């Protein structure tokens, strides 16, 4: 039987399944019946945890390095700590608690102490204690904690969902595929799996209950289908398809240093989206003509507290230097909505996507905004910097952001810093900005269209809500007309328009975007060559006339049907 999900990352895989299930660990407040027996239960859990950590330590020393492995020595010391044990025993004696509950209380106390320390390194150690105590208490409850780092054979990960940090820990050598129960093509796990080039399916409902740990799964990340316990014929078929897929990818490599030019000589840029410096390797490997979107949120999300000016400066500098004179568009903090930070308290909002997020949040947390702008300006001497503001809705907002930027620049100059050339642009993702694009174009150097938000704000439909996800229609004439308005307005003002939303790497959308006159297409690094290959086969004139026709249609279906004619190649 073929199970269906949403295709999230291209490629095929056949491998054994590892179910990534994080158990709920919370020990209830209870008293023990037998002191010795209760203490023994905890000691056994500690023994098991020590064995596991020892294994992780050896593995890390082998696959990464000794220094990274040493931290697990500290984890083992935390379990063996005599003072902690004394406190656990004291609580068991005095209050009569079970050993598990007492251990939970003691570790929570230490976590609080560490969190309260001034030094950020020491604060981070709270996470180590949490990690260790969760493992011990999981064993105490007879549950086990999955550890993707322990995987050392070909595996397909099946999970309810994977957070950005979960995905970041996956070892590409062994993780051959990913299946998650929730999410869509634009969810984090989907974006990350494309970034890592791991074939993936998302939104595969109840995958965890259908699939048993250790069973074999054949996964098709292009169609979004998978088969549980396939026979040998199917297994071979999928392996062959994967080999074919890799061969095709190899072929595309000849385009790495080529320009993106249509048959009739229209030159556009194909750039890449990145989340951190680590992604630059993929950008360069795939011959992207620049970075069209550097999402700085990950810098904030991977940190236990607000990243300072110097930390950010170093991060931006590294990316700018790595890209040489190629354009790097760095988007200022786009937090709020579905992305929160542990160390900033966000007000509970009725409609977070319509609330205090991105540039709005930066205006209300002005010091955070200024720190980032100062770091960006300082980095401007190291490359071709383009600063981009997200979620701009009005001309006033753009002017305000620019005046704060100028203010930072003035004080940096006063402090003796050198400032290089840089450009300022905005994301077009709110329908209001489409309407006033000609006005906005007078105040900035470029536009970049964020289609994910533009589409959901246009249709007033949450793209993550499965019951209204049918309204997420990138090919709808309402969207195509908006793209035309924005691109035309920018060209009239003498500036250019790019696109960094998911639509730019929607293969079928390429001829439409090209025909509309889009100047820059920014996408996952792994889609760059395939898109360049396609565009190089097309005729700009032919895509233009097709777009003329498409603008007359009344629904997505007609647009998609028109594309079937495939008459836009040169």
């Amino acid at each position, binding site marked *: 039987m073929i199970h269906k999900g949403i295709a999230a990352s291209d490629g095929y895989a056949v491998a054994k399944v590892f179910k990534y299930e994080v158990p709920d660990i919370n020990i209830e407040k209870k008293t023990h019946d037998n002191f010795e027996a209760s203490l023994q239960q905890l000691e056994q859990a500690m023994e098991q945890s020590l064995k596991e950590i020892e294994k992780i330590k050896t593995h890390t020393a082998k696959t990464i390095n000794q220094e990274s492995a040493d931290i697990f020595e500290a984890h083992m010391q935390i379990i063996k700590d005599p003072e902690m044990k004394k406190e656990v025993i004291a609580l068991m004696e005095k209050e009569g608690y079970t050993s598990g509950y007492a251990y939970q209380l003691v570790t929570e106390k230490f976590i609080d102490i560490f969190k309260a320390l*001034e030094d950020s390194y020491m604060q981070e150690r709270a996470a180590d204690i949490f990690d260790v105590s969760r493992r011990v208490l999981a064993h105490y409850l007879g549950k086990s904690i999955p550890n993707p780092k322990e995987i050392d054979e070909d595996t397909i990960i099946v999970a309810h969902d994977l957070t950005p940090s979960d995905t970041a820990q996956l070892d590409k050598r062994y993780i051959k595929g990913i299946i998650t129960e929730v999410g869509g093509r634009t969810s984090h796990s989907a974006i990350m799996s494309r970034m890592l080039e791991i074939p993936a399916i998302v939104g595969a409902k109840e995958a965890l209950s259908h699939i048993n740990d250790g069973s074999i799964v054949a996964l098709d990340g292009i169609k979004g289908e998978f088969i549980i316990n396939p026979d040998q014929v199917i297994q071979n078929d999928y392996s062959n398809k994967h080999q074919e897929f890799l061969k095709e990818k190899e072929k595309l490599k000849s385009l790495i240093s080529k320009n993106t030019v249509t048959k009739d000589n229209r030159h556009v840029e194909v750039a890449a989206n990145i989340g951190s410096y680590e992604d630059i390797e993929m950008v360069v490997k795939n011959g992207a003509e620049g970075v069209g979107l550097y999402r700085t949120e990950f810098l904030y999300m991977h940190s236990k507290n607000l990243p300072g000016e110097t930390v950010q400066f170093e991060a931006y500098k590294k990316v700018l230097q790595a890209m040489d004179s190629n354009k790097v568009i760095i988007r200022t903090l786009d937090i709020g909505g579905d992305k929160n930070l542990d160390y900033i308290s966000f007000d509970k909002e009725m409609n977070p996507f319509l609330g205090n997020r991105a540039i709005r949040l930066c205006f209300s947390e002005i010091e955070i905004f200024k720190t980032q702008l100062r770091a960006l300006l300082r980095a401007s001497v190291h490359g071709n910097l383009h600063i981009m503001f997200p979620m701009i809705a009005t001309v006033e907002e753009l002017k305000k952001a620019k005046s704060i930027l100028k203010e930072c620049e003035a004080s940096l100059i006063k402090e003796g810093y050198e400032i290089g050339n840089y450009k300022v642009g905005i994301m077009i993702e709110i329908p209001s900005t489409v309407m006033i694009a000609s006005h906005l174009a007078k105040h900035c150097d470029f536009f970049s269209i964020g289609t994910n938000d533009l589409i959901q704000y246009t249709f007033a439909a949450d793209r993550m809500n499965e019951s209204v996800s049918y309204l997420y229609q990138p090919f709808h004439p309402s969207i195509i007309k908006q793209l035309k308005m924005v691109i035309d307005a920018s060209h009239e003002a003498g500036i250019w328009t790019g696109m960094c939303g998911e639509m730019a790497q929607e293969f079928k959308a390429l001829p439409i975007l090209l025909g509309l006159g889009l100047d820059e297409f920014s996408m996952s690094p792994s889609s760059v060559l395939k898109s360049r290959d396609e565009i190089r086969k097309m005729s700009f004139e032919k895509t233009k006339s097709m777009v003329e026709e498409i603008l007359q249609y009344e629904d997505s279906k007609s647009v998609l049907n028109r594309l079937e004619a495939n008459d836009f190649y040169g």
Partner: protein
Amino acid sequence: MIFMVEREYKVIDEAGLHARPVSIMVEKASNFDNNIYLMYEDKKVTLKSIMLVMSLGIAQGSTFKIGVEGKHANEVLDALEAVLTNHKII
């Protein structure tokens, strides 16, 4: 009263007295029968507990003392000090 030998150190590592050297010192200290203490500001904790030592949050630029009671105190101190020097903590 048992006599205690003390030595004072200043932290130069920018991460402070961090987890890796501490875990090695704790491991070593645990193998000695001596009472071994770490003193920082007005606090005195056993060097056999990683949690107590780490919860002091000793940052770069701070000074702390290690005190050892009992037999061969100076040799014990030498062994612990070697860990600090090897990790460029002091």
